[in-house]
């Protein structure tokens, strides 16, 4: 799965229709574009790309579009001896790709392949993740030390899907998230950092997984999040910034997690997102008129699913950005 952008552009004119079959074709063809320069320039995101494409196809109701065996082969080919996963074969293991690998394997019900063909079973993956927790509860992306609430969320997300939460210190992780909360009720990338909608998603998502949403000032955060919707109908990520289709997920799911998704205008949001699609060649862009890519395609569709857009499979807003039917099964009992 490549992350090659284009060929199309978000149309930018009002469109009430979701061009589902075009989006399916767009995603299906992504991996046939290996002759393009950009295919190689996006190798660092390949495993994420598979997760985005696969999940988008599930949302579109075409879960079997990608060949399952090849998908498993590719995922396992990205695993390192330490149990973690890199972006592509030969790349170093990192939290971001390890989380994508877990999400993909859960989605296609192939976690047991880790035991059969991978470099150790799921415990090995879990220990890679757990070893990245710092003494203050935060998580590093890899051995080189960058910390970010994205990695903390990723860790809890993957470990909860693998049912290995007891490998890490959850109360400390929760305390770290609290230290990232600002007076506006929202959260930043690290303590002291400005509130950012993407980071809010990671912090609220982690608290949801930890069962500690009681710590959130829901009205205050809900107010901040709802102010992300601007006149165009789209969401921005911070005050006085441009709207971007991917925030329909980051902001929308955060609102859903605190039971305040109705605080924004869903119809206007959907209308904005639909303007970001290419109705001919498929795919979504960050905003109308820009080049489409698989990242924005996935998060636009996830956002639309959150809004219960007609014809889309239901996405799980709380446990992981995955089809609800799958997380419900995985986390049941």
């Amino acid at each position, binding site marked *: 799965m490549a992350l090659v952008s284009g060929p199309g552009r978000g149309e930018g004119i009002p469109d009430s229709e979701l061009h589902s079959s075009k989006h399916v074709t767009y995603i299906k063809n992504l991996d046939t574009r290996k002759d393009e*320069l950009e295919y*190689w*320039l*996006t*190798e*660092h*995101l390949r495993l994420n790309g598979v997760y985005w494409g696969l999940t988008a196809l599930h949302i579109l109701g075409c879960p079997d579009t990608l060949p399952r065996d090849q998908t498993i082969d590719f995922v396992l080919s990205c695993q390192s001896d330490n149990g973690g996963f*890199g*972006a592509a074969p*030969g*790349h*170093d293991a*990192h939290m971001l790709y390890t989380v994508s690998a877990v999400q993909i394997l859960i989605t296609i019900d192939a976690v047991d392949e880790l035991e059969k063909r991978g470099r150790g079973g799921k415990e090995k993956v879990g220990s890679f993740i757990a070893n990245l927790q710092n003494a203050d509860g935060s998580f590093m992306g*890899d051995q*080189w*030390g*960058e910390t970010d609430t994205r990695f903390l969320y990723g860790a809890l997300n993957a470990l909860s899907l693998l049912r290995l939460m007891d490998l890490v210190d959850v109360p400390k992780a929760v305390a770290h998230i609290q230290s990232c909360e*600002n*007076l*506006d009720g929202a959260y930043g*990338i*690290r303590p*002291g*950092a*400005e*509130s*950012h909608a993407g980071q809010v998603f990671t912090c609220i998502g982690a608290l949801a997984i930890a069962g500690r949403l009681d710590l959130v000032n829901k009205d205050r955060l*809900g*107010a*901040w999040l*709802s*102010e992300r*919707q601007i*006149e165009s*109908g789209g969401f921005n990520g*911070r*005050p*006085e*910034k441009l709207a971007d289709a991917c925030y329909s997920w980051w902001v929308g799911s955060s609102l859903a997690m605190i039971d*305040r998704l*109705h*605080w*924004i*205008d869903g119809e*206007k949001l959907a209308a904005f997102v639909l303007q970001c699609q290419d109705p001919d060649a498929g795919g979504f862009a960050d905003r109308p008129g820009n080049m489409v890519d698989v990242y924005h395609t996935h998060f636009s569709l996830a956002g639309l699913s959150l809004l219960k857009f007609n014809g889309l499979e239901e996405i799980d807003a709380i446990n992981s950005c995955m089809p609800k039917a799958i997380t419900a099964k995985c986390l049941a009992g």
Partner: protein
Amino acid sequence: MAVPLRADDCDSMVAEHEYTIETLKKISELLSSNPEYYTAWNYRRQVLQYQFSQAEGSDDDAAAHSITELIMNDLHFLIPLLRSFPKCYWIWNYRLWLLDEARRLLPLPEAQQIWQQELALVGKMLTLDSRNFHGWGYRRFVVETLKELGTAEEARSMTQKEFEYAKKMIGANLSNFSAWHYRTKLIQSLLDEQSASDDDRRRMLDDELSLIHQAFIDPYDQSLWFYHQNLMCVFDPSMAERTMAPNLSSSDRLQYIRNEIEEIQEMLDGAEDCKYIYQALIECTLLASKVEGSLSSEDRDQILGWLSELKKLDPLRRERWLDFEKTL
């Protein structure tokens, strides 16, 4: 010129532990064409660490000299990349690693000098994009480290300088919430580092209130209202502890809030369609009731009046206002 897209050469050189200048050059070529190739940044770290360890074999002065040179060269290599790819996490992240190596390996004065130069660089980056959150995050790291490396006196003067910097950035663009946010954090540090008295804190609060009132010349700017909201937390009994003036008495808090309500009401004149004004009036009135322990029927009526304006002016968030109405 052939652009190296794959790391094949680098892969094998690193796998063979060929941590040479030649390998570094290959890695540089790869990263210059694709700085998102994160594994190559890790290769670079391995090569550098090897070269540092080689340098450490010589006497102290010579070692410090060689390591400084290696680090300075590498910092220099990164600058055009940062300029071309200012939102690439890996570059910022690698640069911080390099600076941490300087701190770990070099005598204090040399390390301090290297870190000090970073302030100028990040200043330039933030001039190019004043909302780049990588840049702001980086700036916080640099400042925190310089404070740790310096004396308490130097740390205080550093905070003061940063306060001036945030002021300058706000002056250049009042909508820059990143700078307003930084200001909120700096005020806290400034007061704490000075062991400020409650009177000092109150003076700071008064200055901030008068500043934001002046800034409200454009009441349609959301950034200003979020800063105002930050300031109002001072008067919120449940949040005051986290603010610049945590120890105000209830009667002082009330006095301040009532003044705010008056100030904001005056802003309505000519800006009757500005939703932020009604939101702030409601928030302040609710805050007053929180301090007083109950909402008077007079205040309640006022709130209902503002709320009906909001429902008209802010249809996007209509459900939020309806939810709020139910709580009254």
